[in-house]
């Protein structure tokens, strides 16, 4: 790997680096003597533009799928050459209906009468985003250390078991109870992250396999626990007792701001914001964060520099697990919350995509989590009022990540210039030198 020298742009974007498997810090090797055209090229072909265009392409592809699946569109396809207007009209209706519903469910419901109903969607989006952001932060920390932590799903489940137990079994004063329940959730997740960490550090066991196996073990463990002991006083084996009122996250939006609101949004979202700031501080400002990034960038160099890569591995996965455990608390420690077998839904797997979209940076992960939360909330409404199932959201999400991972592809589709490509003259000199 040639190192980007100051003054010349890096050879590739960091995402495409063969051995930097996770999106690392961007190669801050921008040329000092930027000409006006180069600035323009940076903007047109840069990260923000690529992300925006990727979202556009993904939504367009989703639109094609919606049209294909629509019966009216398919019916008008039979006579498309006689009346093309019918076909395009039907396709437009199907696609715009779906996307308008998506918007109404995700951001702002302009058709609702009351203010409370109008802004309800955005609070739903934030509620969906909370566990995604927390779990994705954990995965992002792992990526930065060069670890593929596929186990957020299992870590959420174990965190939920701990949080729920503290929540319903103990009886404590208000603030303390919530604090301990959240701590319990983080501890449970951390425990489930510690196992692959210590195994990787001691025996070199591949963390991808161990975390996948631990996900399954957690799935069976939670269904076993739900059927036994203190978790199953009702004898149904389906859900645990409800957590105590003192262990619930209070609602975030108080009554005097939006009178009579029934928003589900709770203080767990604030925890997610705080966790984002913490992870930023951890990765960018702390010693351990430096060790994490060093081990991820080049474990051999880190070891030579005197860092214990094994210790960093364990610590990273423990932190990742704790963050996933926090994600669990936002699902369990809520109004009438309890432990169920499906407590983790698919947050653990969606979080991987979120972390990838956020390029493993705290702020990026936060924004990606918000986007995915909005898609989730919007998709729910879309599914209920149009004939488009929520699964389209999965397609849109994965296409976005796929395209963002391959900027050259997006640039090729829109014929954009490559901001990192050396100017033509420099390229010629390089070839001559080679």
């Amino acid at each position, binding site marked *: 790997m040639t190192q980007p020298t100051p003054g010349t742009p890096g050879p*590739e974007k960091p*995402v*495409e680096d*063969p*051995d930097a*498997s*996770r999106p690392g810090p961007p190669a801050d090797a921008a040329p000092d003597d930027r000409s006006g055209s180069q600035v323009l090229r940076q903007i047109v072909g840069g990260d923000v533009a690529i992300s925006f265009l990727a979202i556009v392409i993904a939504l367009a592809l989703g639109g094609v*799928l919606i049209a*294909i*699946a629509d*019966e009216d569109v398919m019916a008008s396809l039979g006579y498309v050459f006689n009346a093309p207007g019918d076909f395009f009209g039907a396709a437009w209706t199907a696609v715009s209906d779906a996307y308008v519903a998506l918007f109404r469910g995700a951001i702002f419901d302009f058709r609702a009468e009351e203010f409370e109903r109008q802004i309800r969607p955005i609070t739903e989006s934030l509620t969906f985003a909370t566990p995604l952001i927390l779990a994705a932060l954990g995965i992002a920390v792992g990526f930065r250390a060069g670890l*593929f932590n*596929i186990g957020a799903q299992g870590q959420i489940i174990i965190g939920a078991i701990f949080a729920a137990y503290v929540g319903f079994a103990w009886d404590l004063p208000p603030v303390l109870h919530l604090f301990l329940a959240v701590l319990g959730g983080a501890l449970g997740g951390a425990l489930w992250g510690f*196992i692959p960490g210590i*195994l990787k550090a*001691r*025996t*070199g*066991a*591949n963390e*991808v*396999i*161990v975390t*996948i*196996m*631990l996900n*399954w*073990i957690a799935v*069976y*463990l939670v*269904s*076993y626990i739900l*059927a*036994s002991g203190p978790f199953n006083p009702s004898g149904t084996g389906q859900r645990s007792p409800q957590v105590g009122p003192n262990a619930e996250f209070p609602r975030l939006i108080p009554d005097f701001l939006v009178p009579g609101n029934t928003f589900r949004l709770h203080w767990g979202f604030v925890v997610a914001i705080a966790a984002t700031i913490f992870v930023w501080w951890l990765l960018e400002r702390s010693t351990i964060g430096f060790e994490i990034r060093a081990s991820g960038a080049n474990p051999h160099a880190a070891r030579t520099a005197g860092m214990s890569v094994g210790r960093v591995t364990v610590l990273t996965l423990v932190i990742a697990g704790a963050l996933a455990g926090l994600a669990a608390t936002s699902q369990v420690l809520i109004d009438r919350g309890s432990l169920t077998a499906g407590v983790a839904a698919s947050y653990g*797997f969606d979080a*991987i*995509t979120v972390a*990838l979209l956020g390029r493993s940076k705290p702020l990026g992960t936060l924004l990606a989590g918000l986007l995915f939360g909005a898609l989730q909330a919007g998709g729910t409404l879309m599914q209920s009022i149009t*004939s*488009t*199932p929520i*699964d*389209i*959201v*999965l*397609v*849109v*999400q*994965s*296409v976005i*990540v*796929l395209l963002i*991972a*391959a900027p*050259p*592809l997006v640039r090729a589709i829109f014929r954009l210039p490559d901001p990192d490509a050396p100017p033509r003259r420099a390229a010629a000199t390089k070839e001559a030198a080679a």
Partner: protein
Amino acid sequence: MSAPVIPVTAGTPSDDLPKSAEVLGKVSYRWPITYAVLALLSLLGLAGTLIVRDGAWGQTTTFQSRYGDQWFTIPNFSLPSLMMVLLLTAVLVAATVYAYQRARSRRELPAWLHIVVLLAFVLAFLTWAGAGKTSVIPVTSLLAGALALSVPLIFGAMSGVICERSGIINIAIEGQLLFGAFAAAVVASFFTAPYLGLVAAPIAGAMIGGLLAWFAVKYEVNQIIIGVVLNTLVLGLTSFFFSTVLADDRATWNARQPLGVIEIPVLSQIPILGPVLFRQTILVYLMYITVIVLQFMLFRSRWGLRTRAVGEHPRAADTVGIHVNKRRVWNTILGGAVAGLGGAFFTVGSGLAFGREMSAGNGFIALAAMILGKWNPMGALVAALMFGFSKNLVNVLSSIGSPMPSQLLLMLPYVITIFAVAGLVGRVRAPAAEGIPYTK
């Protein structure tokens, strides 16, 4: 692992070394300890819980080998449970002692010993589970079901071997299985021909493999990332069409089209093993062929040598004129096709219509089986069979009423895998150039 006691560094004159000190490997007690644990489990866990029961000496376990029509059938037979468990424990103890002696003299254990130990323990467990029950233990159907459940795992693991040996990590096995299942169901249903489904499934899997190769080789995106994303993409696509097009007209697009069972004459009449191995659908026979051909081709053919070279040291391979990236692309597409074919098992192979998220994590288990099998077709086969067996064991035990919670039993193969990955099978080593894009 077995580091020599005296490191012979370059430049050390060999005369300086003491003549008498033979360089010996470290004695590894890995297997004797494993065997001892199994023997102890059998003695305390199985025999122990039987002895405390009332009238344990009189309890029997009934086995059944009958499975469909056969020329010779062995009638159901009952064995005294406790005696049987104690006898099998004795076998395990003997194996432990033998393994200990082999280990002390630094000799490898023969493969048959592993099989004997495994069989003895499983048999002891089955005897224990069926002790004193009126219901029988259906040995043949237990094995046949285990083989069937292993089919997608084995195809998936073979797909992993093909891709990873050439240096491309295939996390997308799950998506390839799911897309294969989807394509097989839709095509078979539309043409009302189950065998056409077997043509469509590998094509669908190959498409996912092609996408993986395209992004991994052309754009050099991290392969695990693409794999994870492709899994989500396939899940989204298939679920979307499942709840729109397929749900609107089930009769046309998602009708059940089971593959017929083909009975191999004579061979299928062998007691117990005959119906298990030779009374199956064509998909299972294709699986036998895939494993055998792959094992041979990978280590005995020009294709195999080049594949391994590209996966271990692409620069060296390139130097002698092998097209590294071309080989990787074709291997990934081929691997995708193999996994896609395995996906057909979920729909046409088991006579079911397509369902949402049908592959249910089998692709990831296949991945684990491949790693447990040390990137070898035969090893991966054994590991996949272990997963299939334990899964079906749970099914059978829950039908006869197991004395152990089914969730804990279901957990077992995953726990075993973690132990195995963490050192039981020795440190596994992936192909050296795995996951690293090759640029000249």
